[in-house]
């Protein structure tokens, strides 16, 4: 691994303390299932070559842990407001599943594309049984499909000193049961500053997610779909 690129990636993680590594990236070695999800056993080392394009800096996988009482106060993410009520409910619903969480991993990769930056991350979470990811996915659906989630994101951006508003956009390469959210960020003049796709799905006891975001110019045609497919390990 290139020291400089690893240092930069490590620096990104470190500097974004509260940002936390986004979603983990996982690419199964042998993606073969028809629903686009690699077998659980295939979770392992990230295959650099799977991501389309070049210049990807891949972070090391990071293990995830359960919440403790100390996290209850320190790990709140969403802005406490009416617009974020659905997201808050989602967050609370996740906390209720805390004791059933067994293990998980996150991994991310970043690519500088001229003046734009792509960041893709994948996350997998394993629970004690299949009921928990079903519940989590249901809560995610309620949150991400609510009509106020764009405003909630806008408030989160304002909290961080970024004056943008969000608009929904369709998510490419999604499967039938996926829970998805696609948005683009527009500044005060209406210019696009970035776009993001979030896809969640489950596979038995595992809840998986991929987040793909880009700042700067929009994705080239089919570029986002290719990255999302690669991130999921699906051949769509």
């Amino acid at each position, binding site marked *: *691994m*290139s020291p*400089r690129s*690893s*240092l*930069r990636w*490590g*620096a990104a993680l*470190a*500097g*974004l*303390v*509260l*940002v*936390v590594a986004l*979603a983990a990236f996982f690419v199964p070695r042998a993606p073969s299932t028809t629903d686009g999800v690699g077998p659980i056993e295939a979770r392992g080392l990230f295959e*650099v*070559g799977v991501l389309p394009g070049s210049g*990807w800096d891949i972070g*090391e996988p*990071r293990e*995830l*842990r359960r*919440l*403790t*009482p*100390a*996290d209850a*106060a*320190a*790990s709140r993410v*969403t*802005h406490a407001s009416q617009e974020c009520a659905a997201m*808050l409910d989602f*967050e609370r619903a*996740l*906390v209720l599943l*805390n004791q059933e*969480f067994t293990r998980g991993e*996150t991994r991310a990769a*970043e690519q*500088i594309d*001229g*003046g*734009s930056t792509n960041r893709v*991350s994948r996350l997998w979470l394993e629970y004690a049984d299949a009921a928990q990811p079903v519940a*989590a996915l249901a809560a995610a659906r309620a949150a991400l499909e609510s009509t106020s989630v764009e405003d909630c*994101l806008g408030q989160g*951006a304002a*909290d961080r*000193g*970024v004056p943008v508003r969000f608009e929904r956009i369709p998510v490419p390469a999604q499967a039938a049961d996926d829970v998805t*959210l696609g*948005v683009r960020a527009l500044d005060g003049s209406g210019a696009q*500053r*970035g*776009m993001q796709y*979030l896809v969640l799905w489950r596979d038995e006891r595992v809840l998986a997610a991929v987040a793909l975001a880009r*700042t*700067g110019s929009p994705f080239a045609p089919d570029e986002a779909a290719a990255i999302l497919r690669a991130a999921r390990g699906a051949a769509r």
Partner: protein
Amino acid sequence: MSHGRAARRSTVRGGLAVAGLAALLYVLARPLEAVPTLVLSPAGGPAPTVNGALSGPGWCSTGLVRGVTVTGPGVTGSASVARGGELAGSFAVTGSPGQLVTITVTVSCSTGTEVARANFRFNDPTPPPTSPPTPPPSPTPTPPPSPTATASPTPTPVATASAAPTPVTPPPTATSSPRPAITPGPTSTAGPTPGGTPAPEPSRRRVRVVGCPLPAEGIRLRISMAASTQSDASWEIAAARGQDPQVLEFELPPALATSGLLALHLLLDDARCPTSERPLYIDGHGATELAPIVYGATTLEASTLGAVAPAGGFGAWVQQLEFGGALATRNQLLRWDTSAAGADGAIWQVTLNPIDWPEGTPPPGDLLGFGTVSCVCSWTLPFEGFAPKTPPAPTWSAQLTEAAFTLVQMLQQAPSAVGASAGTSTGVSPPASVTSIQPVPLVAGDSSPVLPVPLDFYVRVVPTAGGVPAGPPSNVVRLRWTGDSGVIDLSSVPIVDCVVQFEDPYCKALGYGPPPPKAYTVEILEYHGWIEAVEEHAGCYLVTQDTTVKGLVTLEYKAGAQICEPEPEEESWLEAVVDFVTGAIDWASTAYADLKAEVVSFVASAMPPGLCDESCVGTLLDAGLVALGIPPDIPNFDQLTDQGLDYLAERAVSEAGVPAALQDEVKKQFKAGVQAGLKEMEQAYADKVPWLPAGVPVKPHPLGARQPPYALLRVTHLAGPTTSCLVNLDVRSSVIPSPAGDLEAAKYIPYYQGQYKGGTLPLYEPAHLVLPPIAPGQSLQIPLVLPQPWLSLGHAGAAYYSYDDAVEGWAAYYVGGSVRLRADVGGTCSAPASDIVVTPASSSFAK
């Protein structure tokens, strides 16, 4: 398209905004080009299993830590790397006698993988030598390493190459007398006794010294048997600095290596590092890596007034503080001080978990926030800014919810990325400045989500010199957010007390469970408010024992007889309150000084030499009495001190660090000393007060002056296994006002009530004690002079703007009102227990 690893390189060095931020956060304290080092402690031991510690500097000096593994045949362990590259962890190794096991630590850094190995050797399969409990009567232990190449005068009394070392009898007190002159001797190296039977190889030890800069040479150690009942023999040996300039390495003579408890003193010709510091106790059989020798002490306190410093008699500096109201806007004033040599600043650290880690090395993810203080002074801690400065181990739910904010975070990092033209080789946004990245606030405004209460924030500081840790960490200050608010209405915010409501699904999900069994109980035995002096006894003394004074006329004084001074000037009870609050208490009163002298003389024979000298013993007594709030000039000082004897003695041995084997004797002597001291005070009054008859022991009449409010409590450790738990005692009060209170001050009542919606009004400032260990089945009686009246002044939501008004307002509640006194005892491994008493505030109660 695929690319090999070698093809991966960044074309834009400073491409990511956070590259500079990472450097700012992580590079400053890291040595460049450091070599990772692994140190095993111990590096040897008896089969089949040994547990030890891992340490070593120089890890991930130019990158970030991804993971740490500890491996080896028969080896298990774990470790972490702290900011600064210091490895810390533990290992367990299993093997057979004589076996050599290589322990490997592998750290995955963002810049690559770093590996270091160290060998652990199991003791050879020979029976260990018998360890004599006392040194041999004649000074013939194997000599320490002989001088080699260093030319020096024959050292005295240190051993030379041709003679056994001469034990040096230490002076009776190892502190006040000048340190024996030390002739520079040879650096300690291994070597056999010349011309004699080869001696067993001496055992090597390492010890870190904190708070005292070590010279390059001329460092010596004095080692002696710890228990004072044993021989006073001691040895002086040379020590040398290791690779780390603050680590000493020395050879422990074999005779001492087979001994029990040893006391180690560092001998330096440096006023900043006096030999009078308490010794380091080590086990001759024990670990190679010793606990650090710490010079100096660091204290940290918080203002009860939040962001305002105590002044004018209100507010106080405390180590435990409760507060309510909005968390995000809380600014807490703290002050710290240290006696560590050369400290010019500090690192402050905040966690949500009780601090229990070595100096400056918190477990990953434990820190809620840290920062620096650039002086030995007061500074303000903003709660709004708390955020882990090092990436904690991520939690699974936070990862999932934050995925939705990916784009927001990217835009935050590189706000100028918009508009950069594609295709330019350096078209990347400049690194964002630190200030441009806003941490997610702990609480956004008043609309908080569910938060468990109470929520404890633990704060401490580590002194630094030039940014490098240079002194012992301070005591921990606990800032407890109660979730209550006297001003801001949080009724719409759900707050669940997970300590009590552990069955709540939210609390269960976070891992709260039923509290541990109740291990302590507390009872409020007595209380009284201000007791006014009775006119006929004002300024009088009582004779404490039948005394005959022979002179021109023989006078007989019977015990209990009253001797009075001329009438003192009248003072209202309210003026007494003011005096109590604002007056300076003279701890150095001569009578009290006589008491301390008695305590010292009793304790000196029982205390191991060098552990706690005269001033130290006196300080222990002072500290105990301060904790109980008992000043020496109150009329019932003797009664309260006598009631608190057990507490004072327990606290003294705990604070002095008396070895367990000696504690009973020291406690016994401490109590005897206090009792003798009380008698001495009685004699001292007669000597010091001119109108009292000389030679007649007296004590102040209990009703001869105002007695401040007081409560007597009893804490019982219920029978059960002894544990090393932290036990806290908290006493809080609230007043239930009566409309029949002081009419003159009644005009303040509506205003006072208007400021507070609900809740209760404290009557006295809360008291907090960390209790010394109590044996199972035993009780400890604790007299508490209740601290200052709680005045509604100088804090958010205060009812008054002037001190006089605040005192008047307090009086309006005190007179005629009832006090609800609540005592809570609990701690780290006991369910809380409480006792509540409601009684008229100005009267007395006894169970």
